[in-house]
């Protein structure tokens, strides 16, 4: 370290005395071109790296994977009388109104309506007095089959979404989203 310090002055002095302050014109041209090219190269490299990092950040922030679904048992078909309603809550907390509207004994008898308003995602609730589902956020209303009758959802012709149902061996099943990580 001391040796380095001792040498630092003479070396600097050497450089100062030996260096030519005015390079030849052709050398200056070459130097200008090389410096320019190096600058462009570094700028492109940095831009590319920044774009790559932005892409990685975007991928990182974007939620990965879809929501898996599963068929979940709801009820024994013969035990559900026509006109009866079955409140159902999925594993993700989605409230689903399941009702039997026919007597055929087939899956067409049943309807499973999401309680999430198609307008802006609030939860609708059943108003028995008015025979309708009502969304308190923006005054949307839906008939018992989930078709919008009033408010912004009616204007946009949006209905309550339906969940797929199936009957197997006299048992009613519903297909609902399930958590991605199961214990």
């Amino acid at each position, binding site marked *: 370290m001391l040796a380095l310090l001792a040498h630092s002055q003479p070396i600097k002095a050497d450089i100062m005395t030996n260096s030519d302050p005015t390079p030849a014109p052709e050398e200056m041209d070459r130097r200008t071109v090389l410096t320019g090219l190096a600058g462009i190269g570094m700028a492109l490299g940095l831009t590319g790296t920044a774009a790559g990092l932005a892409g990685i950040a975007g991928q990182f922030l974007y*939620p990965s994977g879809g929501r898996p679904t599963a068929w979940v048992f709801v009820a024994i078909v013969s035990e559900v009388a026509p006109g009866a309603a079955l409140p159902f809550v999925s594993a993700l907390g989605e409230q689903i109104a399941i009702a039997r509207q026919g007597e055929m004994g087939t899956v067409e008898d049943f309807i499973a309506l999401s309680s999430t308003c198609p*307008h802006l*995602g*609030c939860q609708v609730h059943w108003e028995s007095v008015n025979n309708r589902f009502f969304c308190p*956020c923006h*005054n949307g209303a839906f008939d018992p089959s989930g078709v919008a009758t009033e408010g*912004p959802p009616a204007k*946009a012709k949006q209905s309550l979404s339906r969940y797929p149902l199936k009957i197997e061996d006299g048992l009613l099943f519903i297909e609902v989203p399930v958590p991605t990580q199961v214990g």
Partner: protein
Amino acid sequence: MNAVETWIKNRIPISGEQIREFTNEPVPNHIKRWWFALGGTPAMLFGGQIFTGILLAIYYQPTQAAAYESVRRISEDINFGWYLRGMHKWGATLMIATVILHQMRVFFTGAYRAPRELNWVIGMCLLICTLITGFTGYSLVYEQLSYWGATVGANIADNVPFIGGFMKQMLLAGTVYNENTLSRFYILHAAVLPVVIILLIAVHIVFIRLHGVSEMRFEDEAKDTPRSFNFFPDHLYTELIIGLSLLIILTTLAVAVPAHLGPPADPLTTPEIIKPEWFFYVAFRWLKLFSGTAAVISMGVVVVTMFAWPWIDGAIRKRNPNSELSVYVGIAAVLAIVGLTVWEAVVAH
């Protein structure tokens, strides 16, 4: 003493004269009227929000399981937690109110006109950032209003043509509110938006310094009134008086009307009566009047028109230099905003 002075001068090589030159922007005389000193008010309130926000962040926990309880703890158990939360909540309210008042003043005095159009655009960006910070802020409490406000907000984003679905996914970290959502709101509220606001304020001030404050003369002014006065100390005293007044107002509000804590978020039940914070009443009422897409597109048109107003106004005034259309547009806009806000405030649904 001399040695100390020399040491300091060597390390901080700027003279008192240079500091005076740097800070002593001549301030136009009309700024002595309080109505014209509104620009610095939201900036001061923002400083207060950073201070109280950092303190609140020490106890706040941004998870669905712990958020509400941590806010309850801040409000009820932690020493002076109720006061700091009240200051933060009322600081946000006043900040949004003063940003709107400042923007109204700039609009009605035509201070956005050439060559200051870009500063109007930066001001618009600041307004939007302030509103989003307010929105993400009350989402953090994780009470019913927070949960359903966040759900509605994300679904409003979903209605934006082309990029809406992507925006909603990025905001909620999924298609619905989930265990990863709250941390996104927290990062936006406590890190991303404050940094963006600081940068925007810096550019806003640089533009003011570059162009100078737009000068105004009033009919009741004596003709020999000086055209400007010094920033230091005259205007600094004005700002100090505003700052002290704000502290008194904020403390009074925090004590007299403490920050409320509603029922905890219940993803299964939207409350029968639900409303956002007052500054979103306009949008909330608008959303009740039209279908989702129509409401979002029309709001987008209004926002784009606000951004472009200096150029729209410029084109109008090119044809008719004496046009007062901007004043009438401003009055109509204020009446519409006040009307929709009052309408939403007085009815349950």
